[in-house]
């Protein structure tokens, strides 16, 4: 990658040098005044720029200016913070310019489905994102930008570079894919990870049916319309960049014990067992801490066999076992002999893998245009090292947008972007056991990172349980490589067929390709080595989709009547191909040597045409869609607004019910235009709106959903009939997928009521919406009776769900003093999701996410409850003594007429007593309760900004209120018996139940019998915590330099800023980060919709400190 960067730098330099060297000739002097439209007062500090020259001036306190026009130049561009830019042509020696405040957005043109509308004419619920605020986040992903910036949009991210956050609009619309449809310059896509956020010109979120139904089949999850920038005016070169550092959370983040304390806990847990089981006591101590009366932290940790004698555990310095002569990091593992110096002060595993890391972004664009056409070119480098070692995102994007007029009636153009992404993410995922993060809370701190020979140390010495060395998990990926490339865009043509009739055709889509390779080597230093041989994997994929849209638009204004009609058709096709393979057993581990052919061992390969990128799953199919649609918007006297849309979609995923019809009607009334409102002069504009319509979804059906399929699978259907010893397998077949040819479109019935209010001449605007969504025919992969076997079950249209909620957006701005301006916005989002039906004829719930609670699950998605609700036993307290247990048992026997003998399974002194949720008198599976809800009651974002002369200061606060988090980290750290010998928490030692500490947090620590249904083997309320938080996402202080000197050298805009991201977080949550995203790499991959809010070691959002520079020539 490096040579490419250098090459790029050279080009950019050349380009800059050329542009700066442009110079000017003869001159005329012009004086003038810049006024504000709101109060007709002069605007101070506005920049007056001669178009096509580098001459510029700044207005005085009364708004006056004087400037010298070079020969041949007649146009001025005036810009000022808080106002829309304006260009004027100078026709005399004086000129007066009136600027319009930005907040007065009623005439702002909003791009909606296949059309544009003025904001005042909108009848649907459309959130127009304030890109000024959104772009302050130093994030490469559009979705991250939206967090807290648009009401009705929920975004949950993580600190992992390149990990797209989980986004959903207005609650949940299906049990599966809830990703909105993005329409970028008219091209629908679900992938915007590589969209350069600097290129975005406008962004609108279409939330209700009135706005979104025109996208029918794919609108159910909401639609986000994005347009990218176009050039206008004189050529402008802009640079926008920042550099900063990211700082992971400090301190003892997992609250783990040091090695001495670990020994103390071991002895305490053994003593506790012996107290409870006097007849069969366990000897005190273990192989690490010795078997003396008190624990002894050993000098060395040893594992291996020498001279026929096996040593495993802790040993004192000078012992035979710890003799360095025995050390042997045998790569074959046969004679592996590990000696590591015990880290008596304790290894901070978290900070062994999480480090400060740099982040930078550089964006350069050239834009300009005139009557005949316009252009924009941009290049961007985003380079974020992850705070977790060996993770990063390095992304290059290049964009070229051009538009041309051919004669008076025809316009053609293209928008195209290329991206190249190198993005190694956390090995093994996040939020799951098995990742480096997950092991950093488990690896005993007595283990050093490296052994005496400089190789990785690990848990192989007996007594340390089986965690893997977290550093090695990440460090061994350092030679893995991968690259993803994508071209996305469209070409279009528009022709004015008649005076009011415009035909438009757009052909667009994406082509992508990528590859990756990984190499794993043996890890004999761990107690349970994952690999005993070296394995190389390589995969490659490519594919793309195209969408061809043809529309005819008719626009008629006659007197008080205005009618806009659009009709058209669209077709879409998607294909993808994956190929890959692996080989084992390498002579050398040198990354320059290893590839698919140089390994000595078994070679495998695969290829498929699967919808999932990089999938090794065999079965797949291409996907096609065909759609016909129309919309009409009518307004009378700009007061009464009515709109309607209709769309008919056909999908290749369906056979018997291929076509679906979607429609919406909407209406608006601008009350403020009525005569009786004229007296309320403080109201600038008031509109009430309503809409009802139907949106669809088909994401949750596999492309092959309709087909019953048989397939071959070496692991599942092959058999060595001949009884051979090696690779003699006979090919076999099995029915692996059941088809449902009757599947049809999901239907999302959507009611929206809202109003838009602008008061005080635009100083304050309020937009509020209440919505109610009834979704039916949800496609869901039902669980069939086990007698069906285990073939993949197709999606059936069985589910029902409702969402309702309130979206509220308030924006305001005011001049506090002449120089000091305040602006602010508040977004407020609520949703209330209820599952209404999963399968009318089957189980009214489905459970997911068993973790180490094998057989019972953390999450129950049940009728009458929201998605992903936590479910288990509610803890009522501790069993304080045997008498309590005996009394409870007797009561239980009585209540059950002797059917049960004990109140609850595995009850014991110091263990949890569960609440009798259903009041039956004893505890069994039916006593489980809903323990928490990861869905927040509301989320909110507040942008607060102050500008004073050249200074600007802003704060963006984001908060989540009322959600619960399942803190599964505690399962590992708060129960000694969960994994004896692995790391434990301060809670386990200092705040667990003992006869003298009965008001404890954790139950009694019991080395032998501590894992049971009354402590940690069933999901219970111990793990549920409040997840509310308020975070200062962004604090920025900037200064814009304005001086004639700068103007003279061609700089029209120069701003420098410092920024702090995630400066502080206020929360009661005890984990490292209350913003819990979703693990998408586990087995099975967790579903962002039906299984979220579970923390098992996330990739926390780091604090970031940045300095940035924006320059325009």
């Amino acid at each position, binding site marked *: 990658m490096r040579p490419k960067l250098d090459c790029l730098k050279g080009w950019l330099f050349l380009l800059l040098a050329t542009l700066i060297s442009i110079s000017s000739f003869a001159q005329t002097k012009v004086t003038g005044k810049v006024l504000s439209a709101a109060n007709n007062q002069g605007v101070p500090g506005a920049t007056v720029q001669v178009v096509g020259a580098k001459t510029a001036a700044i207005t005085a306190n009364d708004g006056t200016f004087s400037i010298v026009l070079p020969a041949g130049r007649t146009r001025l561009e005036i810009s000022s913070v808080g106002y829309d830019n304006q260009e004027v042509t100078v026709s005399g020696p004086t000129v007066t310019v009136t600027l319009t405040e930005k907040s007065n957005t009623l005439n702002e043109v909003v791009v909606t489905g296949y059309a544009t509308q003025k904001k005042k004419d909108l009848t649907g619920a459309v959130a127009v994102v304030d890109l000024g605020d959104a772009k302050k986040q130093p994030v490469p992903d559009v979705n991250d930008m939206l967090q807290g910036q648009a009401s009705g949009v929920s975004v949950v991210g993580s600190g992992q570079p390149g990990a797209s956050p989980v986004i959903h609009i207005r609650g949940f619309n299906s049990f599966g894919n809830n990703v909105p449809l993005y329409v970028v310059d008219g091209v629908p896509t679900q992938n915007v990870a590589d969209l350069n956020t600097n290129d975005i010109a406008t962004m609108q979120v279409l939330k209700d049916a009135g706005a979104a139904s025109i996208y029918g089949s794919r609108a159910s999850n909401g639609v986000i319309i994005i347009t990218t920038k176009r050039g206008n005016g004189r050529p402008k070169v802009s640079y926008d960049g920042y550099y900063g550092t990211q700082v992971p959370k400090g301190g003892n983040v997992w609250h783990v014990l040091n090695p001495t304390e670990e020994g103390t806990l071991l002895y305490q847990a053994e003593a506790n067992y012996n107290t409870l089981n006097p007849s*069969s006591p366990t000897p005190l101590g273990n*192989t690490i801490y010795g078997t003396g009366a008190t624990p002894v932290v050993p000098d060395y940790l040893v*594992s291996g*066999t020498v*001279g*026929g004698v*096996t040593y*495993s555990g802790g040993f004192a310095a000078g012992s035979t076992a710890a003799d360095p002569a025995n050390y042997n990091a045998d790569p074959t593992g046969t004679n592996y002999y590990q000696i590591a110096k015990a880290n008596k002060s304790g290894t901070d595993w978290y900070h062994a893998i999480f480090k400060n890391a740099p982040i930078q972004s550089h964006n350069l664009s050239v834009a300009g245009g005139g009557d005949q056409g316009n252009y924009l070119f941009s290049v961007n480098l985003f380079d974020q090292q992850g705070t977790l070692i060996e993770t990063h995102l390095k992304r290059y994007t290049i964009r070229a947008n051009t538009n041309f007029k051919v004669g008076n009636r025809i316009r053609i153009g293209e928008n195209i972007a290329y991206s190249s992404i190198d993005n190694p993410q956390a090995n093994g995922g996040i939020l799951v056991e098995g990742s480096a993060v997950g092991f950093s809370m488990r690896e005993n701190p007595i283990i050093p990172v490296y052994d005496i020979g400089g190789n990785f140390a690990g848990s192989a010495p007996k007594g340390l349980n089986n965690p893997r060395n977290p550093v090695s998990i990440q460090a061994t990926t350092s030679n893995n490589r991968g690259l993803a490339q994508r071209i996305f865009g469209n070409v279009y043509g528009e*022709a004015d*067929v008649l005076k009011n009739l415009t035909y438009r055709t757009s052909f667009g889509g994406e082509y992508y390709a990528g590859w990756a390779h990984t190499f794993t080597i043996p890890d004999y230093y761990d107690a*349970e*080595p994952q690999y005993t*041989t070296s*394995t190389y994997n390589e995969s490659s994929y490519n594919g793309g989709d195209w969408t061809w849209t*043809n529309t005819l638009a008719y626009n008629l204004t006659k007197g008080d009547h205005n009618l806009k009609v659009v009709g058209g*058709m669209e077709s879409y096709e998607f294909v993808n191909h994956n190929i890959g393979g692996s080989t*084992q057993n390498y002579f050398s581990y040198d990354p320059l040597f290893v590839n698919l052919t140089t390994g000595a061992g*078994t070679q*495998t390969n695969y290829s498929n045409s699967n919808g999932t990128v990089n999938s090794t799953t065999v079965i*797949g*199919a291409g*996907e096609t869609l*065909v759609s016909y649609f129309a919309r009409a918007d009518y307004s009378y006297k700009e007061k009464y607004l009515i709109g309607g849309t209709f769309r008919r979609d056909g999908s*290749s995923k369906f056979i018997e019910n291929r076509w679906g019809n979607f429609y919406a009607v909407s209406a608006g009334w601008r009350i403020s235009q009525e005569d009786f409102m004229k007296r309320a002069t403080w109201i600038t504009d008031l509109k009430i709106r309503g809409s009802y319509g139907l949106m669809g979804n088909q994401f949750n059906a596999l*492309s092959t959903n309709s*087909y*019953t399929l*048989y397939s071959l699978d*070496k*692991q*599942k*259907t*092959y*058999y*060595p*009939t*001949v*009884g051979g*010893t*090696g690779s003699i*397998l006979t090919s076999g*077949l*099995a029915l692996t997928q059941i088809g449902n040819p009757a599947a049809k479109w999901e239907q999302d019935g959507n009611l929206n009521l809202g109003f838009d209010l602008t008061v005080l001449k635009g100083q304050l605007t309020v937009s509020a919406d209440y919505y109610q969504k009834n979704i039916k025919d949800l496609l869901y992969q039902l669980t069939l*009776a*086990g*007698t*069906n*076997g*285990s073939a993949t079950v197709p999606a059936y249209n069985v589910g029902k769900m409702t969402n309702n909620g309130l979206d509220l957006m308030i924006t305001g701005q005011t001049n506090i003093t002449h120089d000091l301006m305040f602006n602010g916005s508040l977004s407020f989002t609520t949703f209330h999701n209820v599952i209404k039906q999963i399968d009318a004829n*089957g189980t009214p719930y489905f459970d997911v996410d068993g973790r180490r609670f*094998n057989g*019972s699950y953390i999450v129950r998605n049940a009728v009458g409850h929201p998605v992903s609700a936590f479910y288990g036993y509610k803890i009522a307290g501790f069993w304080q003594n045997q008498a309590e247990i005996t009394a409870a048992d007797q009561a239980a026997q009585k209540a059950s007429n002797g059917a049960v003998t004990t109140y609850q*399974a595995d009850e014991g002194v110091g263990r949890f007593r569960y609440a009798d949720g259903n009041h039956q008198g004893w505890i069994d599976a039916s006593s489980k309760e809903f323990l928490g809800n990861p869905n927040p009651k509301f989320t909110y974002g507040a942008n607060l900004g102050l500008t004073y002369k050249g200074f600007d200061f802003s704060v963006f606060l984001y908060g989540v209120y009322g959600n619960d988090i399942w803190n599964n980290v505690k399962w590992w750290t708060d129960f000694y*018996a969960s*994994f*004896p010998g692995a790391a434990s928490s301060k809670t386990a030692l200092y705040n667990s139940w003992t006869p003298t500490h009965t008001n404890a947090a954790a139950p009694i620590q019991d*080395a*032998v019998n501590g*894992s*049971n249904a009354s402590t940690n083997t069933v999901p219970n309320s111990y793990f549920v915590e409040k997840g509310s938080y308020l975070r200062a996402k962004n604090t920025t202080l900037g200064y814009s330099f304005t001086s004639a000197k700068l103007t003279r050298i061609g700089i029209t805009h120069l701003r420098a800023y410092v920024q702090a991201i995630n400066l502080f977080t206020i929360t009661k949550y005890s984990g490292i980060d209350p913003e819990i995203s979703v693990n998408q790499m586990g087995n099975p991959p967790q579903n962002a919709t039906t299984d979220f809010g579970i923390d098992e070691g996330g990739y926390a959002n780091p604090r970031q400190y940045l300095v940035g520079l924006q320059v325009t020539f």
Partner: protein
Amino acid sequence: MKPKKYNLLIAAVALATLGCSKGFLNKQPEGALQQYQITNTAGVQALLTGAYASLYQEGDGNTTLAGTGTNAWEASPSNWIYGSVAGGDSHKGSSISDQPPIVPIANAQEISSNGFFNDKWISLYEGVKRCNQVLATLAISPSVSDSMRTEFTAEAHFLRGHFYFELRRCFHMVPWIDETTTDYNQPNDADIWPKIEADFTWAMDTLPAKQPNVGQVNKWAAASYLAKTYVYEAKWAQAKALFDQIIPASYGGTGAGGVTSNNLTYGLTDRFEDNFDASQKNNKESVFAIQMTANDGTLSIAHANGGDMLNFPYNSPFRCCGFFQPSVDLANSYRTDPNGLPYVTDYNSHGIANDQGLDSKAPFTPDAGNIDPRLDWTVGRRGIPVHDWGLHPGNNWIRDQGSAGPYSNKKNLYWQGNLSTYSDQSTWAPGSAINLLVIRFADVLLMAAETEAQLGNYAQAEVYVNDVRVRAANPANILYQYNDNANPLNGFSTTPAANYVISPYPAGYFTATTALPAIYFERKLELACEGHRFFDLARWGIADVMMNAYYSFEGKITGDLSTGNFTKGKNEYFPIPQPQIDLSNGKLKQNTGY
């Protein structure tokens, strides 16, 4: 001007409409086959192979056939959990918190929502489904020749019989699904033993004795499985008629006896260990074996005892994971009296010295008393050679003695000497090419002995039991010390590793009172850790007595049996998985007591 524009428009719309020609929305699946492609001989043959593959009960990536998110061991065809751990010949092993759902199964405290049962259930029905697919597809494949049709049908019936046999003995009342069933929600209101008999009978009547491939089932495997079915049903007369034919005259039968698929007349191998040595598989003792391979190109251990991947000594060269540890009760059973006979009732009073609670650093001397040599091919214990891997170091190879005792399992261990051929190291825990013996000839002999004893033919019963004991007494079964403890690959010495004393029962020993207990005990010794014990105890009707005695003895030694309590009339069967009852809309009824 205007017409020109219209032309453009018409052309564009026409082009756009091309996109919606009828074929555009038809996207055929790739990488898989549809039914019309497999209704032929090759297709049915492949479906049958797929049915064989379901014997592993294993899916992709160490899962069960029940699918993603499950673990191979939950449905291991070895039944190490449901047969051995539940029957007390072994502990779950590892530490108590590892795979906690096994703990209640070991303690007879299982509940219907335990996910292991659901995965076992679904995996077995997937096996049934694959057999039914063979039969159903055959019915619509007219091009298949009559001879192939007969063969396919018979093998499918055999395999289906196997899966239903497993379902019946685990879950008692289970719904019957066959190739004609269209509604898969069937009640479990009828005992399916007769249908299982019918499947095996069909197979026995139509399959040939010799098969082209050793992995294919034959007539005699079907006869043996049918006999086993009769034994489970206590249909002793029917069972005897079959055993008389199956067992060669040299072992006490009436005729030439049965043969394996590769045409070896049934018999006992000289070495007991040959049954658990991958290099000796498909020998004359192999009546019905699931064929295991290592390094078969799948880069997985799906065909290499993946379901038993956890069952190797901990912190050992085998890496993972310290599960499936033989019980102290089992080890004590191998004590022999001065006459070389077992202590059938009071073996725990003659216990074998072990290193429970002892660190590997502390000295320990192995037991010097009389021991049945099968102990040291079954139980790994401190100070005794473990194949060619070295002396068992005791505690160092045990994850948590306090939880599961001092022993480790031996029957599933591969040898270091042929490691590269018969072990598979491609995944995080090892696999091996040791065949899984669903029925071996020693099992047949002991079932025949039981049958004869039930019919009052005690002398004949003793003949069969002594066949098994005579083989155990063969000097080939003596485990010797190493030549060099530091170099275990350097062969064995001529010094026995322990004091092995074993003899057949003296003639006339078996009587109405002694025969059955002796036969039951012999099954425990011979078939230990092979997944039989629980099912044997259950069908004998003595599971409550035996298991509760086990809990009170073994529970004092280890921490994993603290809740053990076997309820007669309930725990002989596992519960119907709760999710299946929920899915059945009331059609499935739970077993008694759950």
